[in-house]
């Protein structure tokens, strides 16, 4: 494969929207230049209204650039051909509510030209992958927000694209789902896919992205690999058992004698999302997630005896 062609190359991109009849323009993207190399997971960050979605829509040929050039695998983004190897999950996605999840993914697969022989297997595969097998035959109109995101992801992956563009894939998805989404993105990366992702949940982005760019008011503020940007190579953290004050003093003196400084003493805490994940019973891996929309009411709803019952263990 030709790796010298970047997956996405954006050069001097500016996008103006005419927002009033008198020709007042709003600059949504301002002279942006970026490159996303093949195989990278690239995070596009920025506050609301900073031009992330606009940039993505231009990459997909849904909007036209005012100035500048955008190429996808070397093909200008306004050409139909540039979209052949791209999967896209729009922000707050919404789909044909009158189709079932299965029909929806199948429709997009056929639009993308997935060969007839592979159609059923492909569709079943991706639906299983995003953990929606249980709800595949329900109308999309009945899906919850998180389920819409999942079916949207299935739709974006069904034709096995080389580049996947995800606009806020975790908006409205619960922490378990978000964790699964991150895992999925890493899986895609291992398959050699390129992923462009926007999100407000910076902690998540941090876990999956190789590189990030931060936009503000349409301008590129900073761009680089995560290690370059946030790695603090001049510091280290040691985590130890609780120490009495006298020991801390001794440690500080010992460090000082060797020319080091004790900068901070903190109580480490588990992250709330880790706590959440550890308390939620669902299996934390994709595909094996029967929880989504499948709270099927059992026919004979005999109240289950509480889980304390089996704690009786006969001592022989």
């Amino acid at each position, binding site marked *: 494969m030709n790796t010298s062609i970047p997956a996405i190359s954006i050069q001097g991109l500016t996008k103006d929207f005419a927002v009033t009849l008198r020709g007042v323009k709003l600059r949504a993207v301002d002279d942006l230049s970026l490159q996303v190399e093949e195989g990278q997971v690239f995070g596009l960050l920025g506050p609301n209204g900073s031009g992330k979605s606009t940039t993505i829509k231009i990459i997909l040929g849904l*909007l*036209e650039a005012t100035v500048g050039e955008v190429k996808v695998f070397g093909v200008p983004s306004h050409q*139909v*051909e540039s979209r*052949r190897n791209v999967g*896209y999950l729009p922000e707050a996605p919404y789909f044909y509510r*009158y189709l079932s999840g299965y029909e929806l993914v199948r*429709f*997009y697969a056929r639009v993308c*030209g997935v060969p007839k022989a592979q159609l059923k297997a492909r569709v079943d595969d991706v639906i299983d992958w995003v953990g929606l097998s249980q709800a595949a035959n329900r109308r999309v109109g009945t899906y919850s927000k998180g389920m819409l995101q999942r079916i949207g992801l299935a739709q974006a992956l069904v034709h096995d694209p080389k580049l996947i563009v995800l606009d806020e894939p975790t908006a409205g998805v619960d922490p378990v789902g978000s964790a699964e989404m991150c895992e999925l993105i890493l899986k895609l990366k291992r398959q050699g896919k390129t992923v462009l992702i926007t999100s407000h949940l910076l902690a998540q982005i941090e876990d999956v992205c190789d590189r990030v760019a931060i936009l503000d008011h349409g301008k590129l503020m900073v761009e680089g690999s995560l290690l370059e940007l946030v790695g603090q190579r001049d510091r280290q953290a040691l985590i130890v058992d609780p120490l009495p004050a006298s020991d801390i003093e001794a440690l500080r003196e010992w460090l000082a004698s060797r020319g080091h400084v004790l900068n901070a003493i903190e109580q480490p805490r588990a992250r709330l999302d880790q706590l959440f994940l550890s308390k939620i019973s669902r299996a934390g891996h994709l595909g094996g997630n029967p929880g989504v929309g499948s709270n099927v009411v059992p026919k004979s709803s005999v109240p289950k005896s509480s889980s304390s019952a089996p704690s009786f263990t006969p001592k022989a």
Partner: protein
Amino acid sequence: MSAVSVPFSFNRLALIASNTFLEAVRQRLFNFLLLLAIGLVASAQFFRDFNFGSSELKFIADFGFGALIFFGSALTITATAQLFFSEIENRTALTLLAKPIWRAEFVFGKFLGVFSVIGVFCALTIGLMMALLWHREGQLMAANPEAFEAGRIMRYGDLFMVGVLQWLKFGVLSAIVLLIASFSNTNLYTVVTGFFALVICHLQYLARDSWGNVDSLILRSVVRLLSFVFPNFQLFNLSDEIGQGAGLDPMLAGRVALYAVVYIAVIGGLAVYSFRNREI
């Protein structure tokens, strides 16, 4: 630049069309259409007691076509606008147009979907009307055998042909509405403008008849231009020719059908051109 590697595909066009049709089916549009058609044809029954003999049959046919034209036009305008804007407003167009598809496939796919929906409506109405006519004619024949010595007098083949021509006319109207929708921002604006276009298309022959020969060159040219830009829907009203007369001239019907197809292609092409640069 390299040759087109994603060629225009009738397959994708048909997919979009059938999905549009499916939307109409699943949104229960057809239940409404069926009711409408039955209501229309049933109301023609009210005129049975007139017992005009063979002119009663003509009356039923005229009534049926009048209803078909009126409700068919209303349905065409609203269904085209609705099925187009449901895609834009629900932002499903975003996902669809981000796939490797041509905008022309989208526009003509939408057109074909709507055109099929209208086709079903026309078939229902005409079919029911013909059944009713057949039934009533049988009754009249039994009551009054000498008036029907040469057998049945209604030309059912002609009725069918006129029905097909009306369907094609609705196709032209649907293409006009799609053209308006391709640059308009709202459903309502599209529907209202579509009705204006419908009125102009129906009445433009009046302008041509009364203003086309006035002395003022400017006025004359404006009227000529207008009648060229807007198709003349009066051409499709061939139902007067059927019934007792000499019958429908197939050559004429063929020319009118060709007229419709040319307008659909040209207006559809303009819709694609205008939609190509639309920001989704």
